[in-house]
């Protein structure tokens, strides 16, 4: 990849707070990353780590009155956080589009699949309904829905979960976006369907040259689809790097913990190592490393201030004070 090219997406020091009368939830606390064109970035993290919030910020889908977003987001030539709502609507669906987790609820139950795809096409390209339906048919073939003509006339509840997710992708791809956001698109699907959808997504991504930000908590899915991986914890990216580096040679104890807590062909007798404790309360984050209370490598300095990202290799960084110790441990895991 040409590393001198300008990144498609630039996120700098993104902070998202949800403010209500009762509490101020710091969901994202200074996230920065780049995404090159036609690259797939996987954001991994457990529930509440801020991965979906980060992604929805790129489309500004948060309720404006209750959300405070700071930082800088650039997608292509658009400075997302300074656009007017009207200009934002031009970006949504045309430049950046999104696939949701639940294909069950992400399609409007009262409209036929074809009309839902055509709606987006007509909105952004201003073409006739007939043209939009022709495009919808093309898209349905593209996402490999069997007997697409019939499915265009079907209602969402008449399709299976896998077909619905494909239809959802057809909606998302309808205007050839340069950036696709996928919010755990395979989590609600069967394991077999999951693989099919992932393979299809990867292929479409290559064909279209799209940048993809893919949110998941499934390391196996990340290994399948990602070029780059960002691991999030308590609203921060704590490790970032190429998929091979992060998943094979993790440098942050949290990533290491995630990997050792997954099932991957160990013998049955081996205890699966779980990460002790639970994620921090986002309303009252400790000043230091948010993972320190659960970390077996933690030293007193960890709780003093948040550790900066340190490079541990080319294009691989982790925000941990004890990177060297952790890496020795992860080498042991790998061998």
């Amino acid at each position, binding site marked *: 990849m040409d590393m001198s090219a300008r990144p498609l997406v630039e996120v700098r020091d993104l902070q998202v707070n949800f403010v209500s009368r009762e509490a101020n939830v710091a969901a994202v606390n200074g996230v920065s990353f780049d995404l090159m064109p036609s690259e797939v970035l996987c954001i991994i993290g457990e529930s509440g780590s801020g991965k979906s919030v980060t992604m929805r910020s790129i*489309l500004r*889908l948060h309720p404006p*009155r209750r959300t405070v977003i700071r930082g800088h987001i650039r997608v292509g030539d658009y400075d997302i956080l300074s656009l007017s709502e*009207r200009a934002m*609507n*031009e*970006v*949504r*669906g*045309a430049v950046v*589009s*999104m696939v*949701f*987790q*639940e294909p*069950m*609820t*992400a*399609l*409007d*139950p*009262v*409209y*036929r699949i074809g009309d839902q795809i055509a*709606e*987006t096409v007509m*909105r*952004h390209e201003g*073409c006739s309904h007939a*043209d939009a339906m*022709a*495009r919808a048919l*093309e*898209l349905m*073939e*593209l996402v*490999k829905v*069997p*007997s*697409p*003509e*019939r499915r265009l*006339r*079907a*209602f*969402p*509840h*008449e399709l299976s979960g896998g077909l619905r997710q494909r239809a*959802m992708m057809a*909606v*998302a791809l*309808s205007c*050839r976006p340069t950036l696709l*956001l996928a919010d755990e698109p395979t989590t609600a699907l069967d394991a077999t369907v999951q693989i099919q959808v992932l393979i299809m997504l990867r*292929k479409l991504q290559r*064909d279209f040259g799209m940048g993809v930000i893919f949110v998941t908590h499934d390391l196996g899915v990340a290994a399948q689809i990602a070029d780059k991986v960002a691991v999030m914890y308590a609203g921060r990216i704590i490790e970032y790097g190429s998929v091979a580096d992060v998943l094979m040679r993790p440098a942050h104890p949290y990533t290491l913990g995630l990997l050792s807590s997954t099932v991957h062909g160990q013998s049955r007798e081996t205890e699966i190592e779980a990460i002790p404790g639970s994620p921090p309360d986002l309303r009252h984050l400790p000043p230091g490393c948010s993972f320190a209370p659960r970390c077996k490598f933690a030293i007193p300095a960890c709780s003093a201030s948040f550790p900066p990202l340190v490079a541990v290799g080319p294009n691989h960084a982790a925000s941990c004070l004890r990177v060297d110790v952790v890496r020795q441990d992860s080498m042991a895991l790998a061998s």
Partner: protein
Amino acid sequence: MSDLSITGAGATADPNAREAPPASQVRGYWGNVWQRLRYDYATLFFLALIILIVASAVFAPLIAPFDPNKASMAHRLKPLFFRDNILGTDEQGRDILSRILYGGRTSLLMGIAPVVVATIVGGLFGVVAGYAGGKVNTIIMRGMDVFFAFPSVLLAVAISGSLGGGMINQLITLTVVLTPPLCRVAETATSQIRSMDFVDAARASGASTTSILFNHVLVNAISPVLVYASTLVSASILLASGLSFLGLGVSPPTPDWGLMLSTLRQALYVQPIVCAMPGVAILITSIAFNLVSDGLRQAMDVKA
């Protein structure tokens, strides 16, 4: 149009692999509702009954055996099947059947018109309140709560009493009474729909707020609102009859079921069965509307 250049070979499906359209057509939402309704014989029966009642009110001048306002001193309070007066006569010797047929016009108008207006007004306020949330919601819904604080009959009597009698005032009264509950149903439905993923999905694909409101929220909120509105038709008929009974509705000699009951009650010991006839008309009509709305609720239950 076909600028979706497809480089992958397998992407354009083999035309032979395409299935022929199946024999059973995919039905629309209303098609599905009709399919479920088709085998619900009880609902169909009462639907037919409603159509019959409406038709007999509309065509009253054609089918009524007598002039509803023609009094006859000689034939006051006659029993059922007295000569041609099948349902007997009232205290002024007017034919009960003819008066019931004509009275159906006012009663059905009172049942349907306020509900339609209240559905539009209440539904609109409810959808706006539910979608906007926050202060707008508080202002609209607390405003509606003011009306909720009174029992509906009391509220109707109070409004009717201050506006005075007459058909227009009665329609206004009923509309005001029926708006808050419809507003609340619309608000609840909307705030549920607002948090659904497809609203976010529509926004993520660039839909404006108005477009989301009309194309996605309103369309989904409409079936619970319609079902609830249909249950209110019978309530509205009953309420209107009650107002007329109390003298707060249409003025005599206009035939009206409630008003007929009110004037006939003095003759209750003379001709009990004849006096009950307008009540029977009210009973049958409101039961029919109630059961049909029950059936509609089941048939319109959207499977998402």
